[in-house]
């Protein structure tokens, strides 16, 4: 009963903040709503018996990644509050795509045989690490996937550094910096 009340509160906060991400005009408000949504989601993770995931959500996403995102937003248009219009031509494609995706996910969730038993899945750090790294129990599947994901992120970072370097050295960025 208590858990249900907590769940409803957190779910309302998470969904409300997620809607705010769409509705807010200024990107910084959008980022802040996203942080709120993520913190509420972390609370839900903790509620269903996986505090480790919840804390990692706060640390990595709300703390580090969203901090970087706000950093970028502030650098890009910190001085002037540019108000982007809520709808433009691109929305014609995005809104149907979002609706179709929501329908698909909803359909899959209602049809899929999701057997979630919170009592057996309770456990945080030990359970997560066993699922990921215990080769004897779950096979090498998750372990290899985990390492490959690490490589992917590393290559993405290297690519980003290369791109940024190229643009810093080129002529037209220097010109635009002067025009500001």
């Amino acid at each position: 009963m208590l858990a249900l009340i907590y769940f409803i509160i957190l779910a309302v906060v998470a969904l409300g903040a997620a809607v705010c991400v769409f509705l807010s005009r200024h990107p910084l408000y959008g980022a802040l709503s996203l942080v709120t949504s993520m913190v509420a989601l972390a609370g839900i993770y903790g509620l269903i018996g996986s505090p480790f995931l919840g804390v990692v959500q706060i640390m990595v996403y709300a703390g580090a990644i969203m901090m970087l995102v706000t950093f970028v937003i502030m650098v890009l248009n910190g001085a002037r509050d540019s108000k982007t219009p809520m709808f433009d031509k691109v929305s014609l494609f995005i809104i149907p795509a979002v609706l179709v995706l929501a329908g698909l996910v909803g359909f899959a969730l209602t049809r899929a045989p999701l057997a979630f038993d919170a009592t057996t899945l309770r456990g945080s750090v030990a359970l997560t690490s066993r699922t990921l790294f215990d080769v004897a129990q779950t096979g090498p599947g998750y372990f290899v996937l985990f390492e490959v994901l690490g490589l992917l992120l590393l290559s993405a970072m290297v690519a980003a550094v290369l791109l940024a370097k190229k643009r810093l050295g080129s002529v037209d960025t220097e010109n635009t910096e002067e025009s500001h």
Partner: protein
Amino acid sequence: MDIIESKTWIEWVITIAKFGFCFVPVLYILLLIPMERRGAGFMQDRQGPNRSYIKIPYFGKIRLFGYVQNMCDGTKLFFKEQFAPAGVNRVLYRVAPAIPFAIVFLSPCVIPWFGPMVFEWGGQTVRIAGSIVDSDVGVLLLFGFSSLSAFGAMLAGWASKSKYSFLGALRTSSMTISYEVCLGLSMMGLLVLVGSFNLTDIVNWQEHHVWGIVAQPVAFFCFLIAAIAETGRAPFDVAEGEPELVAGYHTEYGAMQFGLFYMGEYSHICINSFLVATLFLGGYAVPFVTTETMQAHMGGTLAILCGVLAFLGLAFLHMIYRYSRKLKATNLTNRFEILREYQLYKIVAWIAVVVFIALGVSSWFFYDPSKFVVNGFAVGSLATAVGTALIHLLVLVVKSVFFCWVWIWVRWTLPRFRYDHVMHLGWKIILNIALINLVVTAVIAKLVGGN
């Protein structure tokens, strides 16, 4: 209402009383501000603020070694007008100072204030954890909170619509991200040895093996530097940077809104020093004595505790007597007032010393847990558990106060770094040392421990 019935009333009382620990960082602010100001004076060979006093009728003035200055500062901040410069973003400008201050109340929840209390109650064994939230994820929760608190500085800088504030906010965010990585990685070596994120487990491991500072000396220094940098104080105060940014992200703030940032910073010091003490200095563990030994000889332990307190009282008295002798030799106009105040301290300290010695002697000879019976109900084991908890708490507070002093010490000793120096230190030195330390620790732990 099976939740209420699942525990006995004494468990509920202790569990709810533990929430009082949320206010520890706020209380530490009261300790840290005079410590900082008088400490700075001590290091720069001056007096520091010690002139404000309370006037007590028929006695005279009480200055409490400059502690009254605290109350003056607080009163001033509370009663100043709150203003907002034109053009600020109203909502975020008001919300921003509240974020770091709200986090202050959440952070203490995972720190173990005392060892798990185990006692007999009504024929069954009761176990109460030493932290408010006894969670498997312990330290990570603390890091999550401290990473969220940087949003306060960021929003303040952005909402102020001032270039100084804005630059300060940008620097805050970049520094928080870089030093959080160092903080987490330097701690990982210890976590590999312990095999748990739970802070109670970490302290327990240190109590039965060696302290973290002995097992992981390199990690200790990396962690300490990163922790100092994370609080954003000199020598890492690039976010506030008085010489270049006026006051950084809180340039446009005044009165209590500035006060909230100020208090948030000091509480951050408090939390970080508790964290360093818990991770690397054995937390609540008494040096060289395990909790089991302590509980087996409770009377003797209490006697030693009272002895230590009596010794501290005597040291205080020595200080007062020396001050009075020096003061009598001078010809300051207010020396009789001050000597009169010292007379009061002498009386209080002598009474305290006598009381502590009497308590120590009586607990050495007469302490016997089996004699503790209230209404025919044996509470001896509860008394032992509470006594152990109090000693643990005292030990933890002493260790953390030492680290608070380290914070002040570093601030008034080292010159401040330039921004690129800070980034260089974080990403190119501390991060690499922490990584190497982690790898070496993991290899050694695998070879020696085999886990």
